[in-house]
Structures are given as structure tokens and as C-alpha cells.
């Protein structure tokens, strides 16, 4: 693998950038692999990377029906944080956070992870109480989190309306300063390049159309380019997971919803952190390019169309203008939608399935981006050992039978 650095850029400039290598190959699928990963999004690519890097399993294929990182990875608003309430979730997301820190160097690919701080605004006594609960729980779990009063919030986020005249005045906020944003496409590409360099075959424009199994044991996948065998298959297909599970012959407790987001035109730096409000219901950050990156809740109905309803956009911008009246004259450039797979308890499923050798990693709902490295890391371990990584264990799909749910609706809050 060609190493990336400022020096390398200078060197390649002398040869007119004609000698850069491909970041990944375009291989013809082999007949058989040790592990097949269905879905070449961020989570799938991270899984492949860690399988090869940490478990030495390199005879791996990632099979993607479209282009790498083209699903929710390509469409999300890139918030990274680990301030989840319940121990199980907090440990999983914190594992991911630790991988974010240093990920660019590990991958030798600048994923632009930027610890610019994630603020959750409190607008009611209830919000304050929940904020205190979250901060205390995080601290005891070893995850730094702070509670700010409204004057501190006003000082740290000057563009925010912290006045009493707001419909729901800001009363305080929690802030996770290590949280922030990253460059979403680069995350997929960095993992893809890293996995490819370790020997993983990234097979694009190839759709998995079925799972071949015998006596409840996985044998491989049927694809639009024929059958490919593997004793272990990991399915990481986000909004399409319900469809994939059906092909494998079981059901998942997932609902697929449209989730929309939008950006403004690029403007000069005006907001240097991520601001989220569950109550007013919206969130915003500013990208390095200058766009205000904005989102709010899912569309209420189920669907697989990567578009949502206009009223969601209206509510979202209404919330943003309420929080930031100075943004009223800024203009919205573009909106889009993805499909998110939501679980009843707002936590993911990382699990063995009724089909032996077939594992699923899904249900990340609106907030999977932040988990990309951690999800890939624990799923890789799960596939390598064919049993759940300790951090993944609580996220087995059995919990919907046992009732051991991990209800993160509060911490998951406004979709992100």
C-alpha cells in the first residue's frame, strides 16, 4: 500500500499525480471465501478491515450491490459521541470512540475526525434531570461528560439563542467534548483501502439475492454474479436488513424508516461544535466545507424509498431557526434521505441467527455512523470466533424474547 503523507503529496506533484495507485482493486469474485460480508458500507468495510488486521483472516469478500459506502454512510450527518445512558450501550460506543481517536493514523487515511464537542441542550426541568442522570452514569463508566448551566452554554455557543424569549428557553446542556464529526465518505474509503491492502476482495455492483443453507447451516450466498461459498457470512445491510433476514428465513424486530437530512450553502465558520436538542427537535453542526449539516427525526411511516416527506424538512428547519434565529436568512442547498433500521429499544442487533454461521449486524437506526469502527471491530471478533464479542453479547437478538432490552430512546433522542 502506498503510504499517504504531505511528503508523498509533494513527491507525486512532481510526477503530475500520475503514479498514485488505486485505493482498492476491482477483483473478480473467487468461488469461495473464509468469510463473506454482505454490504460494503462503513460497518461492513470496518468489519472486513478488522477481520484481516486483528484476526488474520484475509480470505474475505465484501459484497456490495452498489458502490462502496453508498448507503447510509454516504448520507449521514456524521455525529460521533459515546454518551449513552445504559452500561451496555455506553461501553460499546465508547469502544468505538476510542477507535475513532487515532483512526486516521491507523488507516493512514485522514478521516477528519474532529473532536469539536457535542452539546445536548436542556430546555425543561425534565431535560435537566435526564442530563444529570446521563452525566453521572457516563462519569462512573469512565466516559467524560459535563453539565453546563445556561450561561456557560451561551458563552460556548454564541450563535445559539439562549435568551428567555425562546419558546423553550435553554436551561443548560450536557457536553461531550471528545465527540464531534468526521468525513463520512473518507471513513468508508479508508477502511476499504486498508482492507484491500490486507487482501480483502471488495466486490461492487454485485447483489446478494439469497443465502444458501443446508440443515440450518450457511453455505454461502447467491449473488447476481453466481454462488459464492463461505462457512461464515456476516450481513451488514442497515435499512435492508429486514429483507435480507427474510431471504435467510427469519424475521427481525426492525422497522425501516426514511431519515432525512439537509445542508445549507457553505458559509464562513459560525458554529464550531455539534448542537443537538431533543426537545426543540433538531441538530446542527458545520462541516469543514462550511455547510450547516442539519437533521431531526425519522419519517413516521415505514418505507424503503430513500426519500421522505416535506413536512419533516419543515419541522426540522423550524427547529433550527428557533434555536439559531441568525440562520433564518441562510439558505438550504440540498436535502436527501436514507433508510434506517430502527429497533424497539433504539439499540443495535449484533447477533448470531437461527442459521448457523450467519450473523447479523443491524438495527443501528439513526445513529450508526458513530459506531462504525466499534461495530466493525466487535463484529469482526464475533465472526472470527463465531461467538459474540463480550461487548456485543448484550445486543443479541435473543433480548427481544428475554426482555433484556437496552432502552436508549432517551440518549438516542433526536435522530442522528
Amino acid at each position: 500500500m502506498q503510504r499517504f503523507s504531505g511528503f508523498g503529496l509533494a513527491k507525486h506533484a512532481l510526477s503530475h499525480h500520475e503514479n498514485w495507485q488505486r485505493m482498492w482493486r476491482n477483483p473478480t469474485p473467487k468461488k469461495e471465501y473464509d468469510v463473506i460480508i454482505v454490504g460494503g458500507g462503513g460497518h461492513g468495510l470496518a468489519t472486513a478491515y478488522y477481520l484481516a488486521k486483528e484476526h488474520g483472516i484475509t480470505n474475505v469478500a465484501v459484497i456490495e450491490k452498489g458502490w462502496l459506502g453508498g448507503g447510509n454512510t454516504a448520507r449521514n450527518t456524521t455525529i460521533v459521541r459515546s454518551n449513552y445512558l445504559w452500561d451496555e450501550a455506553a461501553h460499546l460506543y465508547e469502544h468505538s470512540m476510542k477507535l475513532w481517536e487515532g483512526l486516521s493514523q491507523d488507516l493512514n487515511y485522514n478521516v477528519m475526525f474532529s473532536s469539536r464537542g457535542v452539546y445536548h441542550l436542556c430546555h425543561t426541568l425534565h431535560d435537566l434531570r435526564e442530563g444529570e442522570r446521563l452525566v453521572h452514569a457516563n462519569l462512573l463508566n469512565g466516559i467524560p461528560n459535563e453539565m453546563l448551566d445556561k450561561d456557560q452554554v451561551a458563552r460556548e455557543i454564541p450563535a445559539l439563542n439562549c435568551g428567555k424569549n425562546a419558546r423553550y428557553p435553554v436551561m443548560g446542556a450536557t457536553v461531550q467534548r471528545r465527540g464531534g464529526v468526521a468525513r463520512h465518505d473518507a471513513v468508508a474509503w479508508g477502511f476499504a483501502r486498508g482492507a484491500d491492502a490486507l487482501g480483502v476482495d471488495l466486490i461492487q455492483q454485485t447483489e446478494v439475492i439469497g443465502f444458501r443453507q443446508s440443515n440450518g447451516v450457511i453455505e454461502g450466498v447467491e449473488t447476481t454474479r453466481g454462488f459464492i461459498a463461505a462457512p461464515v457470512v456476516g450481513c451488514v445491510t442497515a435499512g435492508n436488513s429486514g429483507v435480507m433476514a427474510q431471504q435467510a428465513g427469519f424475521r427481525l424486530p426492525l422497522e425501516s424508516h426514511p431519515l432525512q437530512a439537509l445542508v445549507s450553502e457553505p458559509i464562513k465558520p459560525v458554529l464550531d461544535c455539534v448542537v443537538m436538542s431533543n426537545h426543540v427537535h433538531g441538530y446542527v453542526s458545520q462541516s469543514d466545507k462550511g455547510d450547516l449539516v442539519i437533521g431531526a427525526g425519522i419519517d413516521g411511516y415505514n418505507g424503503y424509498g430513500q426519500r421522505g416527506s416535506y413536512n419533516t424538512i419543515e419541522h426540522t428547519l423550524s427547529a433550527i431557526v428557533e434555536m439559531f434565529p441568525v440562520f433564518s436568512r441562510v439558505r438550504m442547498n440540498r436535502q436527501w434521505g436514507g433508510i434506517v433500521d430502527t429497533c424497539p429499544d433504539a439499540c443495535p442487533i449484533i447477533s448470531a441467527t437461527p442459521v448457523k454461521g450467519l450473523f447479523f449486524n443491524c438495527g443501528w437506526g439513526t445513529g450508526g455512523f458513530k459506531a462504525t469502527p466499534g461495530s466493525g471491530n466487535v463484529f469482526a471478533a464475533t465472526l472470527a470466533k463465531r461467538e459474540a464479542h463480550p461487548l456485543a453479547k448484550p445486543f443479541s437478538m435473543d433480548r427481544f424474547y428475554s426482555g433484556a432490552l437496552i432502552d436508549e430512546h432517551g440518549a438516542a433522542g433526536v435522530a442522528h
Partner: protein
Amino acid sequence: MSTVSSKKSASRKVAQSNRLTRGGRINRNKPLKFSYNGKTYEGFEGDTLASALLANGVDIIGRSFKYSRPRGIFAAGAEEPNAIMQLGATEATQIPNVRATQQELFDGLVSNSVNGWPNADTDLMSYIGKAGGKMMPPGFYYKTFMYPESMWMTYEKYIRKAAGLGRAPAEWDPDTYDKMNHHCDVLVVGAGPAGLMAALTAARAGARVIIADEQQEFGGSLLHSADTIGGLPAAEWVKGIVTELQRYEDVLLLSRATVNGYHDHNFLTIHERRTDHLTDRAPLNMSRQRMHKVRAEWVILATGAHERPLVYANNDVPGNMLASAVSTYIRRYGVVPGNKLVLMTTNDDAYQTALDWKLAGRDVVAIVDTRANPTGALIEEARKLGIRLIPGSAVIDVEGGKRVHGAVCCSIDATGSKVTSGKEVLTCDTIASSGGWSPVVHLSCHTGSRPVWNDEIIGFVPGAAKEQRLCAGAVHGVYGLGKVLEDGVNAAQQAVAALKLNQPEVELPSTFEPVKSPAMALFYVPHVKPVSRAPKQFVDLQNDVTAGGIALATREGFESIEHVKRYTAMGFGTDQGKLGNINGMAIAAMTMGKTIAETGTTIFRPNYTPVTFGAVAGRDAGHLFDVKRFTAMHKWHVEQGAEFEDVGQWKRPWYYPKAGESMHDAVNRESKAVRDSVGILDASTLGKIDIQGPGAREFLNRIYTNAWAKLDVGKCRYGLMCHEDGMVFDDGVTSCLGDNHFLMTTTTGGAAGVMEWLELWHQTEWPELEVYFTSVTDHWSTLTISGPNSRKLLAELTSDIDLDKDTFKFMDWRAGTVAGVPARVFRISFTGELSYEINVQANYGLHVWEKLFEHGAKYNLTPYGTETMHVLRAEKGFIIVGQDTDGSVTPFDLNMGWAVGKNKPFSFLGQRGMQREDCVRDNRKQLVGLKCSDSSVVLPEGAQLVDNPKHPVPVPMLGHVTSSYYSPNLGHGVAMALIKGGLSRMGDKVYAPLRDGRVIEAEICSSVFLDPKGERQNV
């Protein structure tokens, strides 16, 4: 400011050196003053900011995003990539990123370029761009800024500073925005020749028509056309059509109105700019912009086509322009943007630009045609005018820095893939280029219909319609004025037929159709050097994406067009690639050896052009962001100086401080008054749902966890509601008003959710039950009097309700009269005291409230707010759903198993959920009381509890404090907490390590701190 540029501008100001003495649709009798970068200029009514700047000879209007190269105005409409301005005379009215080509000039307009330091003319950043540009290929930032790790945030700070275009205002928007909803039979998008004919046809058929156009005038390309229609100059013909359309009552004509989004089910949004052409700030009582939300039976897209520029080296130097834009400035605005023109074209249409330039009296140096043997009417006309024609050639490079000085011209081969001769430099100051036309397929793409490549017209056209959508004119590749007019009629006739209206008479006007030769497909002009080594050949001007950059992307493995876009940032700008994308896709295809059809397009999404946030929010902003709900007694609370708490949408009195009282003082006083004598709470905000029908009782049985079969008329019962998972989500008292008639109360914040929950289950799962739900929360005022003297007080105000403790028992309700008003009185209690909840018709609420105070003075009747309500209920261990529960708590966890009916014949919601293995295990979190070892300490709510505060991180947690208050009646703090196995740990010590470093010790106890036997409410 440098003196040189001031001098220049002074001369420009007088001259409008590029303004023609006649022609154009501007009003020379109405000069308008405006400023650009601090200098004052003059233009005319009818100008855009762009045409006025060009009239004044302003070459550089900004600097490019990445390399800080000087840029000039390139186009004349929505596709403009360069002329992005900051507008606004005051701080509050700043608008970032306004396209000068779309901003009408008004007197006093203040504009500034958005990049360049110290200014756009002389930008120091350009030296970095020049020196470092070679090190900044696409995606360079993914390959560097990584080492050392700690430096990234510093690098990033400077990256952020360099990025962005305009700036957000620092003050609040003084303007308002509004919305209108419409239904129509036919929405025509675009009022060019096709759109006008379509609208006319539909209107004559009697259809309800909306026709919208982004420009201030209808006519589209006809506004700068040299054509005649029906013997009239095109613009005159337009006037006639518009006049007829205005006569129809059912036709809505919207100008300055961009159809910016096309959503499912033929729902479209139109962004109308009502005042942006008048002043900085909207006139009083007028909304600045309006969103029209249209549900159309049929949509006719008549959005035309954008001209495609050619991609050649240094094609971004000011003076390079689109051919059609040059014509537009000359014919529509009377502005010639230079003196010596070189035109490069792949087609006949652009010859008109050379003719227009020549007719304006300026010099056409040459027409460089990429085709070897162009023939046709316009070509003949050019020859006749003595214009030099250089066929089979191309401008491959440009000389000049801040303005074009020369065009480097070479012969090229028949396919346009290589240079075949030495160069000739043509001295000129303007290079107009045309690579043909790209249909404006954006809106059709919004609906999920992928554009389809059409070799014949060398462009993408809309894919198969996903909605009731028709196309007319250039948008689907129909070119030639006569054909376009006819196509407009045809589209409308299809809609008219589908609408089952009678086809109207429409006569097609005569047009002149010049004979044309075929155009050449050329998306990349070859250079003598290969693409990686040629000088920058820009594809996307706004994002500084070059042909070389696209080639590099494909070389590095970014083969999907989406990857190319994301890696190079092509089409990421505020123009969303209107000019550059097709060339870029073609170049990507070329470098991969694929066809354009194989490569395809990226997806165009809303908005077509950017839309103000404020306009999308509309009136749902400021104090109208979310409704405020007030009870009938609100005025009284305000007069008494109450502090308010937001609960849901309600404003509830939180506490009533007297002069000099702190919150703590007030709450102590209120709490004691209730227990000692009598207090009054405005409980009107509690949700109230009237439930009627023969299935009502059975419905309650299924929705609530407890049994309702035997509740008699006149009785009340407390119930818990669970979701299917067995977790509590609401509670309240429901009273039996009649055999088939109940009144349910819910929590204040949960009312709407419960209503939806009831309807959901009724409509989707149990439609066989005949039952009806009506929200009556606002219909009733609820006045709760509570305390040992409450009966005495009530007795003074009612004569027809028997208050005897043995006949009107706890959990009974009675109808009667209170303070002369019909009332329902419920003997229920959330304080543990003798309490009555008096419900009266909401309009009587304040009357009864004041009557109670008239009679209550002698009992020291004290109003109390939500804070005191919380203290009193916590003393009694009564839960608040949402505070003491969080969606993970079963009735058993709350020690409220008594509220779960075990013998109900039909299952109830949550029953199966709460029987799951994990829900019945030991050591679940259970609601208990906590008493601090130091009685002066009040635990903070939200504190986590542990067995061993000295345990290293992560510290195992037992649970958390859900409710905690100082109890003035007990003289110490009372708290409730959810603790693992709490109910079997009575007397154990637990610890709350706080974020400020303190550790508080507390003892687990019963959550009922006061009157455990419940004697006080049974008196």
C-alpha cells in the same frame, strides 16, 4: 483598498462602459445606485446585479474556492457558478451566497464578494493557490494533515477558515415568511415558449392552472431571443400570451417563483421571492418570501435547457463565458461584456452570439468551430457579416490572468480527441463557448426517475415518469422554436384529455426555423499535453474541479460516478453542478473507456436553487414556533406573580413566590399550607379523554393493566398503561360516568400520545369494539383543593352535593353545582390529603377559582404549583410517570403489582411483555425510597447510586435517584430511586458519587414517607 482600483471604479461609475445606448429590457430612465465591495456604481431598472456589474466593466467578482483564482461572471441565470455574493446593507439583513445573475438590482443594493484577502482583485491567498495548487489534487486532504495526530485540530481550523463562501448574519432576521397551499389540475414549471403554450392550452380548456417561473418576467429564453413568433418579436408575443393568461380566474401566474422541489404524489414546492427585488428588508406587513405547497393533478415540466460550456485550459479566467449568456447580456440588458470576442462552438445555435456581438458594434475576432465543415443559415449569416470562421479547431488554452488576453487556437481531429496543428493565438478579451445544451432534468430526478442519455441530442433527458408528469420543450430534448411551441400544446393536450376536459382551440403561431447542421459531441477539449499535465481545465468552476482531477479520481479507483463526485467535490457547490456535471460525467466515462450512458448521472435532489431557511420554516418561527397552551386561570396566576414551567406545550404555574421569597421558601410555605389547612392547584392541564360506547369498558380492560369490569357509575379508579413490552408509559384516574361512558385522565405531557395510542389500538387491532374517543382536555377546568379543610371549603360553595364522608367516599365522583356552576367533583388525591378535583366547563374556571378564594381566605387557601405538587406526592411515594419511570419499568418494579389484574379474561397490553424471563428475574431495578444519612442533604435528581464509591472506574451502578425534594413537613429530604433489587434491600446504605466530587450516603427505605396507612385522605 488600493488606489488603482478606486480610480478604475471612479471612471466606471460614470461610464457604464459596456452599456449599449439602446436595446434591452432595461429602463434607462430609471438609474439605480448600488455598491459592490464598497464602491458605488450605477445600473438601470431591469438589470440584474450581474448585468449591472458587467455594464460597469467589473471583471473580477470573486476568488475560487480552492485555488483562489480570479473569477468573473460566467453565465446569466441559475447555473452561474462564480458570481456568488454577500448581500445586505445592515447586519440583520445579510444574505450569503446570492447569485448575482438572479438578483434584480434595486436602489441602494449593497453587495460584496465573498472571498479574497485583502480583496477579490488582489488576493494574497492566490499565491498559495498558485504555489501549492499542484499539491492539492482532489482528495489531497485525505492523504495529509495526519501527522502528528495532535495537529489535526489546528490544521482543521485553517481549512475551515479558508472554506465557506458568504457569512451568516450576526443579528436576527427582521423579516417574516409565509406559506400557501394549493391544489391545481396542471402545474406548469417554466414560462418559456413551451411552458406558455402549455399553460395557455390548459387554461383555455378550463383547467385550474399554476404557472411558475424563476425569473421576474415570463418568457424564458424569449426575453433575449432574436426570433419572431406569429410575426411579432418574441417578447411582444409573450406579452400577449401573459395578458390572456391573466384573464382566467383559475390561472395563477407566479413570477420570481422557483419550483425548487418535486416530491412524491405530485407534491411540489415553489419558493417565491416577493420582496428581494425591492429592498433589503421586506416592506412593512409583507412577507419577504413565500413557499407555495402545491398538490398538482398533472405537472408539465417546461424547464428548458442550460447551455454546456466547453472544457479547455484556463477556461476560468475572467472573460470566459457561456455563449448564450453573452447573448443574454447584449439583447436583454444592453450590455456587451467586452470588446473583442472569440466564440468557440460545437453547434449552430451559438453563432447567434457572434451575430449579436457584431450587431452591437464590437469586434468578433473569430468563430472557432470544432466541426470540420459547418453549414447552415446562421453560419452563412456570420460569413456574410465578414466574421472569420475557423472550422475543425478549438480554443485549447487561454492567455491572461485577471482577464482574457488571447485564445490559443489549434486544429483538432474529427472526434475532438487530439490536437492536430500548431497554435495560433487570437487576441481577444472575451471567449464565449458552447458545447450544446443540457436539459434541466433536475426536477424529474427529484422523484427518483434517473435521467436517460440521448445520443441524438447529446444530453440527458428525464427518465420514465414516476408521477403524472409530462415534459414540454427542451427539457426532454425538443429543440427548435416551432417544435417547442407545438410540444407545449401537445403536453397540455395530454393533460387536458386525462382531466376529461374539452380540447380547446389552439393555433400554432408561425416561426422561422433556420436550417442547422448537426452538433458535435465534445465534452473535453484536448490540449497538446495529456490531461494530467495540461494547465487546469475546469469542469466545475465553483469547486475548482478539473478534468485532470476527475481523471486522477478514476485512476485511483473511484469508478462509480457517485465516487467521482464525492472524491472530487464535483457538483457539490451551490449550483449543484448545473454547468459542469455533464462534462464531468463524460470525462469520467472517457477516462474509464465507458460510454456516458454506462456512467450515468449522480442524483439531483431538492433544492433546484437554494431556499431560505426562514421560508421553509414559514410562520412556525419565533413565538409561533410551537403553540403555548394556557389554562382558563392563567391570567390569575400571572397576576399572582407565579413562575411558570413548560410541561408539554402547557405553561403551568411552578410556584408562587411572595415578595422576598426564594423558590425554596415558597415551596415550603405552599407544602405546609396544604398539609395544615388547604391548598389549590390548577390541574386543568391533565389530559382528559371522554370514552363512550358499548365497547368502552372492555377497551379499558385491554388498555389498562388492572380490571374495569366492575367499576360502578360514580366510581373512579387509578390505572397504569403499558406498552406491549410491559413497561409503564402513562397513568391516571378514569371515572365511570355511565354504563358506557368513562372519563380518562392522563399525564399532562402524555395526553396526545395516549390519545394516539387508544386510536391506534382501536383502529388497527380491535375495530370490533364500538367505542369513541374525544379529547376534552381543553373543555374542562380542573381545580384541585387539597388539605384537611378542603371539605369545609367546598361545602360553602355547593348545596346539591352531599359531601358526607360516608356517602361521598374516597375514589367517588359526583355531579352537582359548585359556585353556581354545573360541576363534576372527583374525590381523588395526589397529595395524600383529603382532596376534591372540581371540573367545570372551562369558561367558568376562573369564576369558580375566584369564588374558592373568596371563601378560602379564612382557611388560608394557598395556591400551589407543580413543584409543591411534586413534594407532596413524593412524601407519599406517588410516582410521576416519565420521572420515576423511563420506559424500562414494569408495574412490579414500581411495587405496584396491585394495579395489575391477574384474572382478566382477555389479555391486556403489556401482559406478555412483563412475563418475559428478564422482566421477572430478581435484582431488577425497583422503586424505593432513600433517606440521606445527613438529614440536611437533598440528593440531586439524576445522581447514580453505587455500593462502593471507591471502586475503580467503571464503577458498577445500582440505579439512580428519580425524584428528590426537601420535605418541609418532615424536616428532611425525601427521595425515590430505582435500585437493583431495592425492595429486598431495605435499610442498606448506598452511595451517590456526584460530579462535583461529593459522595452522599443514603439509606434505602420505603418510598412512602408520610402517612403510610393513608389515613389522611380517608377522613
